[in-house]
């Protein structure tokens, strides 16, 4: 029964979702709404579970004191401050939570991402080499798009932006379509395998 019941639930839920997508009328539209509500409730509980797990992991790190354990203190204090600020004063504009978001979280988060610019520049100098014909093609395309898509390209040669746009609109799009079609076929086949009970890896241990 431990195997059959989950398989039946998966089959019914999967088929109901497929049918409601193509027939968005009663009773299938009601089923969709019901499933949506259930999903949203489960998602919130999953988030709570994730938070609990995060806190447990970092509390354990504090007890065991492996290398870099002090980062866990930062995480726990940061979590506690934001949690208390949000719960006590709310998250509206002008509240402590909002202040911390704009003046602590935002600059730190932006700074981490901005560092990428330096590493991209360094990596492009050290690793982007025309070693093979394919790599050369990629390199030339990258240069044309990089320069063609900033105003500087227009000053170098007024056809450069057009060339950049052409690369984006044709070779890029053809590649993207191929990837998307491949992914879609993969998703369909995997979903069908799960719904029909062929793929049972989610039943691990049963």
């Amino acid at each position, binding site marked *: 029964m431990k195997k059959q019941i989950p398989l039946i639930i998966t089959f019914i839920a999967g088929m109901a979702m497929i049918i409601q997508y193509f027939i968005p009328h009663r009773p299938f539209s009601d089923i969709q709404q019901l499933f949506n509500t259930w999903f949203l409730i489960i998602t919130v509980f999953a988030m709570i579970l994730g938070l609990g797990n995060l806190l447990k992991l970092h509390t354990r790190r504090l007890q065991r004191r492996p290398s870099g354990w002090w980062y866990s203190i930062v995480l726990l204090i940061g979590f506690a401050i934001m949690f208390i600020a949000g719960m006590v004063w709310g998250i509206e*504009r002008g509240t402590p939570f909002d202040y911390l978001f704009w003046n602590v979280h935002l600059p730190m988060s932006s700074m981490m991402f901005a560092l990428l610019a330096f590493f991209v520049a360094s990596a492009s100098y050290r690793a982007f080499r025309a070693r093979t014909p394919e790599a050369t093609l990629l390199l030339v395309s990258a240069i044309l798009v990089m320069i063609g898509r900033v105003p500087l390209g227009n000053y170098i040669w007024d056809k450069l932006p057009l060339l950049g746009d052409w690369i984006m609109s044709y070779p*890029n799009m053809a590649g993207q379509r191929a990837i*998307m079609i491949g992914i879609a076929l993969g998703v369909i086949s995997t979903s069908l395998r799960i719904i029909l009970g062929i793929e049972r890896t989610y039943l691990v241990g049963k």
Partner: protein
Amino acid sequence: MNIIERLEKIDRRIIFILILLAVIIPLLLPIGFKIKVSEPVRIFYETIEELQPGSIVLISSEYDPSTMPEVYPMNQALARHCFAKNLKIIGMGLWPQGIPLNQASMEQAAEEYGKEYGVDYVNLGYKAGGIVVISAVSENIPTTFPQDYAGRSVEEFEVMEGVKNFDNIDLIVSLSAGDPGVRQWIMIAQGRYGKKVSGGVTAVSAPAFYPYLHAGQLRGLIGGMKGAAEYETLIKKSGTASRGMDAQSIAHGLIVLFIVLANVFFIIGKRKKA
């Protein structure tokens, strides 16, 4: 070690300093490069222009502070454009950190155009669940978001009067830096309900949306800071994206120069070895 080998193995701190200068100098001393508007951004702008005053635009913010330099200027320009055209905005988000950013954009634009919260715009906040939230919103917005981002009942807001589901939304704009984002809005709102969907994304993810754009499933696309600068040019309101274009141009130029030089040294080195 000869000169070519030395140049090939240049200290990366020199590269870091050059990039720093390439970004800082144009920000302090603007060059004022002219910004040329691309077709995807023009379509985005025209889609907004086609809407009648009083139409409702749903802006979904799916980005966070790390991608703020690229997406936030789009959010600001979009809010300004909507209020300038007397359109109503319903804000929401599938990423929690996008909510205060969207709120700040709308508040700033509202102040400039004399618009009022609850009457001309509202922020419904964040709901966990990604694509399922879109599906739930498509059927019933007030049930999915009974309260706004600050916990006030949505029933008390004038802008929400008569807004039940996608039938009452004229345009959906997703400003996203990943998943869930524009792709999911296209899948549900456009694919299933035939709603008009426009998008603003980071430069690195823009290429992935060209198939949707060319298929007509996406009504315009703003890609990265360059796209945001183009949009600012179209609405005639210069913002942070336009100001950042000089720095981005020089930084791109420098990186391309690095790539070219590194390959020249690489080829010379290879020939010498041969």
